[in-house]
């Protein structure tokens, strides 16, 4: 039978887990006594994240990748644009609280993201308190110990304070806190960039294993392209608040189309002397413009070797050139 299911907002099983449409986040910056100017940190970004999928978000500092993560979780009120969770639009404070029972965040700096005056047990237990996720004290304690075990922390660490731990262990505490609400989506904001290489690999593996075990989805924000390629299914590249390219992880790494992605990927230092020394890097002149004075049209045009008048006049459309491969560039034929 072809029973047509009428989709109510509550039952939208075909919708992607998280969908972002034309998200904008402007910050007002005071430029004088009575003057202010919008800083367009995120300027019209759209993407979806499916269940059990990892979307990598890369870009240089100041391109707005952290702001995307924070605005997505409504830590900042979006200036414009919509966020959907399982097809439901998030609007009211009630929606936001409900959303945050399923979506959470792991922060970059394991030193400043943990309250130094709270014990590990209280840090991990705080989300449980906020969302009333236990019936008794004993259950709370049990849940906390279970979470600690999940991320490879000993139960005797529960009554210690954050300063007693190394960077890697602190990041584990941060992850346990994120897992406390039983999320299905985590925004990981540079979760390994403050860690040493050997510890970094431990944490990356843990993200991998958690995904396999409980089917988590990640928005994985990082500037280390090798790490992002390792962990992501798809990768999005941002430049000055705009998304310039989005494609499958291996596809974008092997065949980047946008001139910025090409330069970015060619600049990654490869840990192999023969390849590294033979590597033809695409040198980009100049620096990233200030987002307060972003260039007109395509934001990358001031550093782009292929820029034309059209690039200054209008922002290229973010369009699908191959299946699942989106690029925003006027001069794709010239670039490739």
């Amino acid at each position, binding site marked *: 039978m072809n029973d047509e299911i009428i989709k109510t907002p509550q039952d939208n099983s075909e919708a992607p887990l998280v969908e972002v449409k034309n998200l904008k986040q402007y910050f007002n910056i005071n430029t004088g006594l009575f003057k202010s100017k919008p800083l367009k940190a995120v300027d019209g970004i759209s993407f979806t994240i499916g269940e059990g999928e990892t979307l990598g978000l890369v870009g240089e500092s100041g391109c707005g990748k952290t702001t995307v993560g924070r605005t997505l979780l409504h830590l900042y009120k979006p200036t414009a644009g919509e966020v959907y969770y399982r097809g439901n639009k998030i609007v009211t404070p009630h929606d936001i609280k409900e959303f945050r029972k399923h979506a959470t965040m792991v922060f970059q700096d394991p030193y400043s993201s943990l309250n130094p005056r709270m014990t590990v047990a209280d840090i991990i237990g705080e989300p449980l308190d906020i969302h009333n996720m236990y019936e008794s004290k004993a259950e709370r304690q049990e849940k906390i110990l279970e979470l600690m075990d999940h991320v490879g922390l000993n139960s005797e660490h529960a009554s210690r304070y954050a300063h007693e731990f190394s960077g890697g262990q602190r990041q584990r505490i941060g992850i346990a806190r994120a897992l406390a609400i039983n999320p299905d989506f985590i925004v990981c904001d540079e979760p390994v960039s403050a860690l040493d*290489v050997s510890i970094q*690999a431990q944490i990356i593996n843990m993200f991998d294993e958690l995904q396999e075990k409980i089917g988590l989805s990640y928005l994985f924000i990082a*500037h280390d392209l090798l790490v992002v390629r390792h*962990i992501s299914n798809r990768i999005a590249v941002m430049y000055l608040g705009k998304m310039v390219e989005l494609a499958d992880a291996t596809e974008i790494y092997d065949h980047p189309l946008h001139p910025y992605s090409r330069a970015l990927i060619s*600049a990654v*230092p*490869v*840990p192999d*002397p023969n390849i590294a020394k033979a590597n033809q890097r695409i040198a980009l002149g100049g*620096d990233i413009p200030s987002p307060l004075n972003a260039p007109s049209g395509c934001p990358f045009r001031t550093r782009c070797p292929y820029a034309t008048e059209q690039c200054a006049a209008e922002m290229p459309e973010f369009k699908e050139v191959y299946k699942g491969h989106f690029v925003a560039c006027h001069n794709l034929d010239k670039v490739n």
Partner: protein
Amino acid sequence: MALLEVNNLRTSFFTDAGEVKAVNGISFSLDHGKVLGIVGESGSGKSVTAYSILQILASTAKINPESSIKFDGQELVGSGEKVMRKIRGNKISIIFQDPMTSLNPTYTIGHQLMEAIMLHTPRNKQQARERALEMLRLVNINEPEKRMKQYPFEFSGGMRQRIVIAMALACEPDILIADEPTTALDVTIQAQILELMNSLQKELGMAIIMITHDLGVVAQMCDEVIVMYAGSICEQGTAEEIFYNPKHEYTKGLMRSIPTTSTLGTKLQPITGTPIDLLNMPEGCPFAPRCDAAMKACIYKHPENVLINNDHAASCWMNIKEGIEDGSITRLDGTDIAEGGNDNE
């Protein structure tokens, strides 16, 4: 004779909690025009090594007087502040990780550049100005005349690092120590700076000591590599040897920890555990508590540094064990490893 010879360098910090052996008996040499990379995790002693060479350590730190640092044949350990002031910035320069904190925010960059030049070379103000402009051009700063009058905050991170490089190279040092010079920078800017350092190195022919935790940067820049762990050198050799033929379990672990093309779709193989506490250093190999291949000997006795081949030395009992079995390895001084001193059983 090598340009820089470091022999059995020991630097300790004396803290309330006890002696922290930040650098624990390391030896290496650096030739003219070579790029030496020092890699290691935070706390492995790579920066302290650099600061020891220039003697710019905190007041709680002490270089063991038996250590030896010879620059161009001249002993630097115990040589006193007067000698060191002539060396610093003039013969051996350093650039730091964060370009903002190494520039004075209250002076124009022209002032700061000229100050360094006039201090170290017999140039008058006009000549120093010309030299400063020349250096800014060398590091690809546009409109140097205008830029000379600007303050550090008016520059981006990448440009500040260029200015710091210009300042470090203004007196044509024989050695440039670069302490994580690109860690604070973005990938595309990092590529620019590395490219610049590479071309300046070829042009001016100085030697570079490149301190970094990024094996990718090392692969791109360095002729020789030293891998440090907990204040000791695990392994040293040419870049090719270290990357393609690592002989220390720690180096091997580091290589396996980095995501590359070949690790796609597989699990990374991280080094287990956490770096050791420098206050409680074990008697044996400092890496033994994290090492999967650790043997009894590793826990009790620090492994000797042995030559794997002419371009490569490592201090790991695994190699010594194998080497004794097949007779393929020798001590650094060329004597047979099986004779004497072999009390590891």
